[in-house]
C-alpha cells in the first residue's frame, strides 16, 4: 500500500475527470456517489498505508515514494513523488476521512442546487490538491498543492457567483492569499539558494549543518514561510478573508475553511520544524502571533450574530492555538489539535448547515431559539462539538488543547495565561451560539417556522460519525499524567526529533509570570506532575466558568448582554465592527494601491506602454505589408531571390 500512495490524490482526480468531462448527463445521485466514492477510496488506501507504516519500526517510518523525475533543469532537479511519514499519514487520514464525510453530507445539502455537478467537480479537485499538498515530497510539489487549494477555495467561495457578495469574497480571499503565497515563494527560493535542493529529505537533515542556530538565514526562511502560513491559515494580519469566505456553501466552509485547507499553514510550519527550531526569534513570532490571533479572534466571535461568522472567528482562534503550539516547540500537540479540530469544527459547520437547511437559509442566531426539540440530531451533535471545542474532558478538544496549554506554559507562562483566557472566551461564545440557537424561546420568522424540519439521513449520518470522532478522537493522545500513553505524540516523534532537544533547551527563556516556569524546571517529577494536574484543572475550570457565564447571560438574563454592551459602548462597537480592520486595510492598502494603479494606468500604461506596444505592432504590420509584396507569385522572381540570397550568403561567408 505504501507504494500505492499515489492513488490517494489520484482517485479524487479521477472523480474530477469523470464528473467534469463526462458527467453532463449524469443524474445528481450518480455524480454525488462518484465524488464521494473516489474520496472514500483515497481514505481506504490511506488506511492501508497507515497499517503498513505502523508495522515498521519507528525509525523506518519515513518513506519517500518517487514516481518520476519531474523537472530536470540545470541545477534544479525536482522529483515528482510523495513523502510518507507519520506526519503526512496523519494529514492524509484526516483530510481524506473528513472530506469523505463532507462529500456525503453535500449530496443532501446541495441536492437542489443548479450547479450540483460543478460543485462536486470543484470539491474533488480540492481534495486532490489538498492531498498533494500534504503528501508532497518537496517544497515545489507542496506549492503546487498549496496554490491548487487556493484556487479551489476561490472557486468555491464564489460558487454562487451570480451574487455580488460571494464573488467579492472569493476575490478577497484570493488577493489576501497572494500576499502570503509571495512570502512562501520567497522562502522557497531562499531554501533553494541555501541548500541547492527543494526535496524535504535532502533539505531537513542538512538544516543544522547549513543554518547556524539563530542565524539570519534560518530566521529569514522561517519568517517568510510563516508569512505564507499566515495567509493560508488566516492569522493576524492576513486573517481578513476567512470571515468573508463564509459566503460559500456551508459544507465548503466546513471542509476548506475549517477542517483542512486553513490548517495547511500549521502543517507547513510543523513540516519545517527542523528550520524553526534553529530560529528562536521566528518561534517567538509564531507563538505570539498565534496566541494573539487566538485571543483577538475570540473577542470578535463574542459579538457576531451570524452563526457561520461565529464559527469562522472560532476557526481563526483555534488556528492561533495550533500556531502557539508550533511556536512553543510542541509541534505534535499542534498537529494533534489540528486533527481534533478538524472533527469538531467540521461538525459545527455541518450542524450550522443543517440548521440553515431547516430554517430556509437563516443564519442570524437572534432569529433562532428553541430549535432543540425540532432538530434533535442536529442539536445533540452540535452540543457534543461545542463541548469538545470548549475543552470539556474527556472529549477530544480537552486533550489536544491541554497539550498545547502545557507546552505553552513550559515555554512562557504569559503565553499560557493568554491561551487560558482565550479558552474561557471560547467556551463563552460557543455556548452563546448554542443557547441562542437551540434553547430559550423561539424567535423565528413566521414563514420560516412553518417549514422547520430535521435534515435527511444522508446529512445526519456524517454528523453522527463526526460527533463520535469528536468524543473519542482525543483518546489517542492522553498524557502520561492521566495514565495515557501519549500514543499520538509518540507516533509523530520521528518527524519532530530535531525539535525535541531544542524545545527543552529553551523552555526557560523569555519573561515569566511569577517565575513559575523556572520553578517548574527545577521541580522534581512528582511536583511537575501535580503542576500539570493543576493546570488541567484550571483549563477545565475556565471552560466551565465560560459555559456558566454563557448560561447566565444568554438563557437566564437575556437582557444582560445588551446592558453590558451599553455600558462599554465604544469597546463593543469596535469589536462588533471587527476592530474596523477591513476599513483600515481599505484605507491603508486598497485605496492607495487603487489610486496608484489608476495613475499608472492613465499616464504610464496608456501613454508609454500602450504607445510602445502599439508602435511596435504598427512597425511589425507595416514591415509585414512591405515584405508581403516580395511574394509576387512569379516563380522566376522566386528563383532570382534564391540566387540573390545565395550570392549574399556567399559574400557574407567569405568577406565578413
Amino acid at each position, binding site marked *: 500500500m505504501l507504494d500505492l500512495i499515489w492513488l490517494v490524490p489520484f482517485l479524487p482526480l479521477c472523480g474530477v475527470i469523470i464528473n467534469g468531462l463526462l458527467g453532463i448527463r449524469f443524474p445528481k445521485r450518480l455524480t454525488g456517489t462518484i465524488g464521494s466514492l473516489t474520496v472514500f477510496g483515497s481514505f481506504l488506501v490511506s488506511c492501508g498505508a497507515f497499517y503498513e507504516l505502523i508495522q515498521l519500526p519507528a525509525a523506518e517510518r519515513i518513506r519517500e515514494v518517487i514516481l518520476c523525475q*519531474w523537472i530536470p533543469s540545470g541545477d534544479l532537479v525536482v522529483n515528482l513523488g510523495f513523502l510518507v511519514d507519520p506526519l503526512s499519514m496523519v494529514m492524509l487520514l484526516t483530510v481524506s476521512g473528513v472530506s469523505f464525510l463532507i462529500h456525503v453530507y453535500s449530496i443532501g445539502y446541495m441536492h437542489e442546487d443548479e450547479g450540483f455537478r460543478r460543485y462536486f467537480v470543484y470539491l474533488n479537485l480540492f481534495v486532490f490538491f489538498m492531498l498533494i499538498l500534504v503528501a508532497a515530497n518537496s517544497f515545489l510539489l507542496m506549492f503546487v498543492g498549496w496554490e491548487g487549494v487556493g484556487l479551489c477555495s476561490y472557486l468555491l467561495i464564489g460558487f454562487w457567483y451570480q451574487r455580488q457578495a460571494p464573488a467579492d469574497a472569493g476575490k478577497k480571499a484570493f488577493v489576501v492569499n497572494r500576499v502570503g503565497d509571495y512570502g512562501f515563494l520567497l522562502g522557497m527560493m531562499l531554501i533553494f539558494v541555501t541548500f541547492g535542493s527543494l526535496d524535504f529529505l535532502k533539505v531537513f537533515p542538512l538544516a543544522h549543518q547549513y543554518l547556524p542556530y539563530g542565524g539570519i538565514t534560518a530566521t529569514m526562511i522561517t519568517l517568510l514561510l510563516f508569512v505564507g502560513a499566515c495567509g493560508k491559515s488566516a492569522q493576524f494580519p492576513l486573517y481578513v478573508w476567512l470571515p468573508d469566505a463564509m459566503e460559500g456553501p456551508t459544507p465548503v466552509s466546513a471542509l476548506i475553511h475549517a477542517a483542512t485547507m486553513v490548517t495547511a499553514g500549521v502543517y507547513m510550519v510543523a513540516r519545517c520544524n527542523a528550520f524553526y527550531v534553529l530560529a528562536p526569534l521566528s518561534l517567538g513570532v509564531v507563538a505570539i502571533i498565534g496566541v494573539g490571533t487566538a485571543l483577538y479572534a475570540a473577542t470578535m466571535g463574542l459579538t457576531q450574530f451570524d452563526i457561520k461568522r461565529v464559527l469562522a472567528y472560532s476557526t481563526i482562534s483555534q488556528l492561533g492555538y495550533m500556531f502557539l503550539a508550533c511556536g512553543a516547540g510542541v509541534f505534535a500537540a499542534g498537529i494533534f489539535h489540528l486533527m481534533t479540530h478538524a472533527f469538531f469544527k467540521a461538525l459545527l459547520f455541518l450542524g450550522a448547515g443543517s440548521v440553515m437547511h431547516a430554517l430556509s437559509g437563516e443564519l442570524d442566531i437572534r432569529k433562532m431559539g428553541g430549535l432543540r426539540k425540532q432538530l434533535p440530531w442536529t442539536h445533540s451533535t452540535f452540543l457534543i462539538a461545542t463541548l469538545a471545542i470548549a475543552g470539556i474532558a474527556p472529549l477530544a478538544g480537552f486533550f489536544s488543547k491541554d497539550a498545547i496549554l502545557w507546552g505553552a506554559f513550559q515555554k512562557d507562562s504569559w503565553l499560557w495565561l493568554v491561551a487560558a483566557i482565550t479558552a474561557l472566551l471560547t467556551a463563552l461564545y460557543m455556548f452563546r451560539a448554542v443557547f441562542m440557537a437551540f434553547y430559550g424561546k423561539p424567535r423565528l420568522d413566521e414563514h420560516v417556522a412553518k417549514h422547520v424540519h430535521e435534515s435527511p439521513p444522508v446529512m445526519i449520518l456524517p454528523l453522527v460519525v463526526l460527533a463520535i470522532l469528536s468524543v473519542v478522537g482525543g483518546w489517542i493522545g492522553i498524557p502520561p499524567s492521566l495514565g495515557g500513553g501519549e500514543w499520538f505524540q509518540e507516533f509523530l516523534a520521528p518527524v519532530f526529533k530535531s525539535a525535541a532537544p531544542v524545545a527543552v533547551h529553551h523552555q526557560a527563556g523569555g519573561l515569566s509570570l511569577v517565575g513559575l516556569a523556572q520553578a517548574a524546571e527545577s521541580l522534581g517529577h512528582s511536583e511537575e506532575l501535580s503542576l500539570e494536574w493543576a493546570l488541567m484543572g484550571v483549563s477545565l475550570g475556565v471552560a466551565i466558568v465560560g459555559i456558566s457565564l454563557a448560561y447566565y447571560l444568554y438563557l437566564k438574563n437575556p437582557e444582560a448582554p445588551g446592558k453590558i454592551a451599553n455600558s462599554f459602548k465604544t469597546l463593543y462597537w469596535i469589536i462588533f465592527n471587527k476592530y474596523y480592520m477591513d476599513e483600515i486595510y481599505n484605507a491603508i492598502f486598497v485605496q492607495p494601491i487603487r489610486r496608484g494603479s489608476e495613475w499608472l494606468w492613465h499616464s504610464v500604461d496608456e501613454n508609454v506602454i500602450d504607445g510602445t506596444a502599439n508602435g511596435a505592432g504598427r512597425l511589425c504590420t507595416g514591415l509585414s505589408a512591405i515584405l508581403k509584396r516580395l511574394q509576387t507569385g512569379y516563380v522566376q522572381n522566386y528563383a532570382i531571390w534564391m540566387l540573390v*540570397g545565395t550570392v549574399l550568403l556567399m559574400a557574407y561567408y567569405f568577406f565578413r
Partner: protein
Amino acid sequence: MTIPDVNWTSIGTELILISTAVLVIFFDLVVKDKKKDSLGYLTVLGMLGALVFAMTDKEGTAIAFGGMITNDSFTQFLTVLIVGVAIIVTLMSMQSLREGSMDVGGYHTLVLLATVGMLLMVKGLDLIIIFLGLETLSIAIYVLAGYRKGAEQSAEAAFKYFLLGAFAAAFLLYGIALIYGATGTTRIEGIAQYIALKNLGTNPLLLLGVGLLLVGLGFKLALVPFHSWTPDVYEGAPTAITAFMAVGVKAAAFAAFVRIFGGALPLIAFQWKDVLWMLAVITMTVGNVVALSQTNIKRMLAYSSIAHAGYILVGIIAGGSVGWSAVLYYLGAYAFMNLGAFGIVVFYGYKQEANVEIADYAGLGFRYPFLGAAMAIFLFSLAGIPPLAGFMGKFYIFSAAIKSGYIWLTIIGVMNSLVSVFYYFRVTVIMYMKEPIKEVVLNYSLPITIVLIIALVGTIQMGIAPNFYLERALDSIKWLIG
C-alpha cells in the same frame, strides 16, 4: 572492387514501407471505389509495422552497407518520429480523400515512398545517400502537391515546387561535388577526418561546397531567403500534404543537417555558425512578421513553419548536448502541435478546402467546442505558452543558446516568439469572439479523431512531462558529443 555485405535488416523499415506501397498499388486495382478507405488502413497498418520494427533494437546493424547507412540511436529517434508523422498524415488524409476526387491508391503509395526517402536521408552516412533520399522524397512530394484535381492552385504549387526544387537540388549537388573535390570523399566520417588531418579550416573549395550545401538544404527547410516557394506551395497542396511537408520533410532535412554539420563539419563550425546566426535571425523575423498579415490559415501556418525552422536553427547554433537534444526535442514537439493544427485545418476545411480563410473560423469555438479547444491548445503551444510542448521546446532551445553564450540570438528569438503570439491568438480570438459567417457541418470520423487525440495528448504530455522525450533525445545525440 568488392560488393559489400548486404544486411537486409538494416533497411527493414524501408523494405516494409516499400512492400506496403506495392500492396497498396495492387489492392487499388481490386478494391471497389466505395471501400477505398481500406487502402488508408492498409497503409497505416504497414506504417505501424515499420514503426514497431524501427523501435526494436537492432544490435549489430549499427553500420551497414559498407558504412553507407547507420541504425544508431539518432536514426532510431528520427525514424520513429517520421514514421509516426506519416501515420498521422495518412489518417488525416483519409478524411479529405473520402470527400474529394483524388486518386486514393496513388496518394497513399506516394506518401509511403516519400517516407522511405525521408528515412534514407536520416540514416545516410554518405552525402550521396542523403541526396538520394532527398530526391526520392522530393519527387513523391512534387506529385502529391499537385494532387488536388481541378484545383489550379494545386497544379501551380506542384510546378513551382518542382522548378525551384530542381534549382535547389543543383546547388546541393554542386556543393557535394565541391566537398568531394576538397576532401576526396563523400563519407560523413571521412570528411571530418580529412578536415582534421589536413587542417582545412580555410580551404576555399571546401567552404564554397559547404555554402552551396547550405543553400540546398536551406531550400528544403524553407530558410529565408530560400523560402519564397513555401507559402504558395503550402497553400496549393492538399492540406494533409502541407502538414507532411511542414513536419516530415523538415524533420528529415534537419536530421540530414545535423548529420552533416554536426558529424562532418564540426571542426569548421567557426566558419558556418556565423552564417547560420544570420540565417536564423532573418528566418525567424521574416517568418513571424509576414505571418502577421496573412488571411489564409494555410499561408499563415506556412510562415509560422518558416519561423519555427528559425528557432530550430538557434538550437543547432548553440550545439553541445543541450543544444542538439533541444533540436530533436523541438522537432517532436513541433510535430505534435503542428500536425494537430493542420489536422483541424483539414477537418474544418471540408470538401475541396472550402474553409481555409482565417475569417471562416469565426464561431468555431462555440459550434464545435472540442475542435475549438483543441485548436486553441495547438495554437497556444505553437506560440510557446506553458505548460504545452511548444513552451518546453523553446525553453530548451533558448536555454541552450544562453548556455553557449548567444545572448543576442536568444533575445531576438524571444522577441520573435512574442510577435508570433499575435497571429496565433488572433485565430483563437476569431474562433471564440466572432459570430460565424457561414454554416459548416462537420462529421467526426474515426481517423481524424485519432489524429486529434494523439496530437493533443502529445502536445500536453511533452509540456508537462518532458523528461520521457528529452531522455531519448539526449540518448540519440551521443555520437555528436563524442
